[in-house]
Structure formats: structure tokens, C-alpha cells
């Protein structure tokens, strides 16, 4: 574990140095990363120039949901976002190089092309979340205050598990990188909006099948003092850490199974 983190740090530092060679391009991609995510929020602002509430939620409350998933997804994207390149490595055979190096393959794949520009996404999430905290009138209790950092970290872990599971799937289907985008980027987009606007089955699906609802919906609605969505019990709001651990365990099993089934292209 310690070795893995050390290896991750070294590979990440190497990529940061390499990115800094093209400073103009780095500045542009950093800004681009920030703006790309900011545009999502601009779209919500544009919607709110026409309405006062969406699905019964105010702009501040949606900003709370948005910021929470933005930060959680941003952290996962920074740490594990390169995992979707695995399929390419399997196809062109460069995964073999990683297998002979004295560092965990998962770490090498995750740190590959480590992109500091992804800080742009986290920054944007933090700004929106900060905005939400100032405008929404939250009835703070110790439980609610504690739940906020727990929610953000658990959410990052859940998204990381999705990235890892998606990469494991690429051992089977090398060109399936886009499928994982549906769950990572698509999941992030889904969670930016309140659950009340989606079909009940969809909300239950992302609670029990692919537990993205634990990233922000369930805990955030509790913090906001609202009822849990789709008739779900409210104690689910405290489950994100448990769900995160289970997700990471399942993802690591999937990763191992995928890695064991790996056959080199041989060229």
C-alpha cells in the first residue's frame, strides 16, 4: 500500500514535469477543464433565468447537489481518471511493459498521464459548493456537519470504484471506454440535478444497482433537511462510507479478475 502510494507519487510527478514543458497549453487545458465544468453550471443558471425552482428545488439547493458531486467526481477524476486508457494499452500491447515493472499495475495505470489540469474541475466544484453553503439556510447539527466531509470523500471513493470497474471491463472489451463514461460523466451529470425530476425506477436503480445515489443525493438531501427520494428510508443518508468500502472491494475484485484474464497481443 505504502509502496503503491510512493510509486503513484513518482509517476504523477514525472507527468507533471512533462506537462509543464508546454506551459501555454497547460494553462489553456487547466482553464478549459475549469470552464468545461463551469458550463454545466451556466446551463443550470440559464434554466433558472426562466424558472424559480426545478423539481421543487431552489437554485441554492441544486448548487449544493452540484457542488457535492462536482468535488467527489473531481477527486476521483484526478486520481483515477486515466483508467479509461487501459483498453488502448491492451490493444497496442504496452500493458506488458507495466507488468514487468516493480510497482502495482493498478497504480501505474491510474497514474499514467496524470493530469494536473483536472484540478480545474475540483476548483469549480468547490466554488459552487461554497456558493451553495452561503445561500442555502441549513439547520446545522453535529451530524449534518460531519456528514458533509464524509459525503465528499465517500463519493470520491464510489466514483473511483466505478473508474476501476470500468477499466477492468476493458480487459474483456478493449473499445468499451465510452461505456464507463456513461457511468462516470453521465453519473456526475445525473447527480447534478435533484432526484425528484427523474423517474422513480431510475432513482431506485442508482441506489440499489449502481449506488451513485450515495455520492450526494441521499446524504445531501438529509443535510438539506429534505425527505429521502423515491420513498427510500432516511437512514440511508449515513451509509455512504459503507457503500464506498463495498464498492471499492468489488472493484478491486473485478480488477484482479480482469488482470488475471489478460492475454497479451504478443506483438
Amino acid at each position, binding site marked *: 500500500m505504502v509502496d503503491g502510494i510512493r510509486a503513484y507519487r513518482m509517476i504523477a510527478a514525472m507527468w507533471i514535469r512533462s506537462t509543464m514543458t508546454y506551459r501555454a*497549453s*497547460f*494553462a*489553456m*487545458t487547466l482553464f478549459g477543464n475549469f470552464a468545461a465544468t463551469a*458550463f454545466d453550471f451556466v446551463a443550470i443558471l440559464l434554466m433558472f433565468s426562466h424558472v424559480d*425552482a*426545478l423539481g421543487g428545488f431552489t437554485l441554492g439547493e441544486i448548487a449544493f447537489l452540484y457542488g457535492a458531486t462536482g468535488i467527489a467526481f473531481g477527486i476521483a477524476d484526478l486520481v483515477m481518471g486515466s483508467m479509461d486508457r487501459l483498453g488502448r494499452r491492451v490493444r497496442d500491447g504496452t500493458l506488458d511493459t507495466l507488468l514487468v515493472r516493480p510497482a502495482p499495475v493498478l497504480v501505474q495505470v491510474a497514474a499514467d498521464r496524470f493530469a494536473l489540469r483536472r484540478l480545474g474541475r475540483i476548483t469549480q466544484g468547490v466554488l459552487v459548493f461554497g456558493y451553495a453553503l452561503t445561500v442555502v439556510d441549513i439547520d446545522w447539527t453535529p451530524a449534518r456537519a460531519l456528514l458533509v466531509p464524509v459525503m465528499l470523500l465517500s463519493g470520491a471513493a464510489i466514483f473511483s470504484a466505478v473508474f476501476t470497474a470500468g477499466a477492468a471491463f476493458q480487459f474483456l472489451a478493449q473499445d468499451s471506454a465510452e461505456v464507463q463514461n456513461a457511468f462516470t460523466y453521465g453519473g456526475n451529470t445525473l447527480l447534478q440535478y435533484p432526484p425528484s*425530476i427523474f423517474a422513480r425506477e431510475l432513482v431506485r436503480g442508482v441506489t440499489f444497482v449502481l449506488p451513485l445515489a450515495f455520492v450526494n443525493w441521499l446524504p445531501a438531501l438529509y443535510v438539506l433537511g429534505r425527505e429521502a427520494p423515491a420513498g427510500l428510508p432516511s437512514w440511508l443518508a449515513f451509509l455512504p462510507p459503507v457503500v464506498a468500502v463495498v464498492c471499492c472491494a468489488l472493484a478491486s475484485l473485478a480488477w484482479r479478475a480482469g488482470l488475471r484474464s489478460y492475454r497479451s497481443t504478443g506483438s
Partner: protein
Amino acid sequence: MRLYAAVAASGFRRYATYRVATAAGVFTNTVFGFVLAYTYIALWSERPQLGGYDQAEALTFVWLGQALLATCAMMGGGFEDELIERIRTGDIAIDLYRPVDLQLWWLAGDLGRALFHFLGRGIVPMVIGSLAFELALPGDPLVWVAFLVAVALGVVVSFAVRYLVALSAFWLLDGAGVAQIAWLGGMFFSGMLLPLNVFPGALGELARALPWSSFLQVPADVFLGKRTGIDLLGAFAFQAGWALALIGAGRVLQAVATKRVVVQGG
């Protein structure tokens, strides 16, 4: 001419080879289509007739966006990454030697790609969307034809923008930054985030006048029957005008680049 047709055909075949990638893309487009459709239902049930669309038209807009996302390469990922790489490594020198027009060569390949993406990644999400939601599909076959013309013009504008982006690598070497900025413009000003007629006041005017509206907003309005008669010709003229202007700019920039810039050796 036959040469460029062959290049276009191979562009088509090249993308058609990756069936799993196509299926994965269709899956992702469909998931995003559902998420966006529910947000639009929430918005349009609060404000019916927002932007001059009723709810069925707004939902049609969502699924058209998903269908055209890959066709107009709104997220990038077309030829430009490859061209940037060739400029960075210096392989572009070989391309410049060839007895073909560089811009037309890449245009032909990109048209082939777009045709495949239109068929392979456009139709299925649209069908799924029309089964899951009530959409406003045109009954008049001529509207469908006009829509195809608008999409084709949108693809050419999209190519012209990305060609300019790729040429920036002659000066910057790493084109990723410019590509990302252009991609942002494409996402925001094409109507992908929200239809441009929902944008307020001057921002809406500006967005509708920029080339990116050719990618989605103009074809969607043609599809929804919002632009007919003279107005339809105006829409085509708008797209064709941007296409010619940007293609021309690409030629000028290419001429400057090949005269002034030293190609990377090694």
C-alpha cells in the same frame, strides 16, 4: 475526385471497424439522452413553450443532440488529434510532399467518418428516444431531406473549425489546449447544453450568429419545421457562409504555416 472519394470511403471503413466502440458510444449517448430528457421535462413543465418549443419538441432536441454529437464531432476526437500529432512529430513534411491537397484530404476522411457516425451512432439513440418519449418527428419527407442537408453543412463547418485548431500546433506544438477551448465553444454554442433560443437576450443573439450553431441548433430547427421557405434557404446560406469562410481561413493559415514555420525534424 476519385482519390478523395476513396479517402472518404476509407474514413468510413476505419470507424466502422470498431464495432464495440460504436456500441459503447451508442450506450453512452442513450444514457445522456435519458438524463437530459428528464431535466428538460422538469424545465418545460414549469415553463411550457419556453424558447418557442413545446415539450415534445424540446425532447426531440435532446435526442437530436445525442444523435449529432459524434457526427459533428462536438466533443472532438476526429481527425484533429492525428493531424496535431503529425505536426508535432514532423511527419507533416511527408504529407506536404504528396501530390494532393492537404485540407481536402483530411476533409474527405472526416466526411467519411461523419457519415459513419451519423448512421452508426445517430440512428439508434434517436429510435430509443422516440420509443421512450413522445417526440415531434416531421411527417413531410422534404423536411427530412432538408435536415440531412443541414447536417452535412454542419459537418463541413465542424471540420473547418477543427482544421484551424489542428494547424495551431505548427506554433504551439501541443494542440491540446486549443483543441479543448474549441471543444468548449462547440459544447456551449452549438445548443448541446441548452437550446440556443432559451439563451437570454444578447447572449442568445451572439450564440445563434456563431459558427457552432450550425452543428445542432440549425439542423434541429430545420428538423422541427421552425425554418421553412425563404427562412430555410437563409439557414443553409448561414451554414454555407461559415463553411466557406472557415475553410478559406484554414487555407490561408496553412499557407502561412508552411512558409514561415520550420517543421520539426528528427
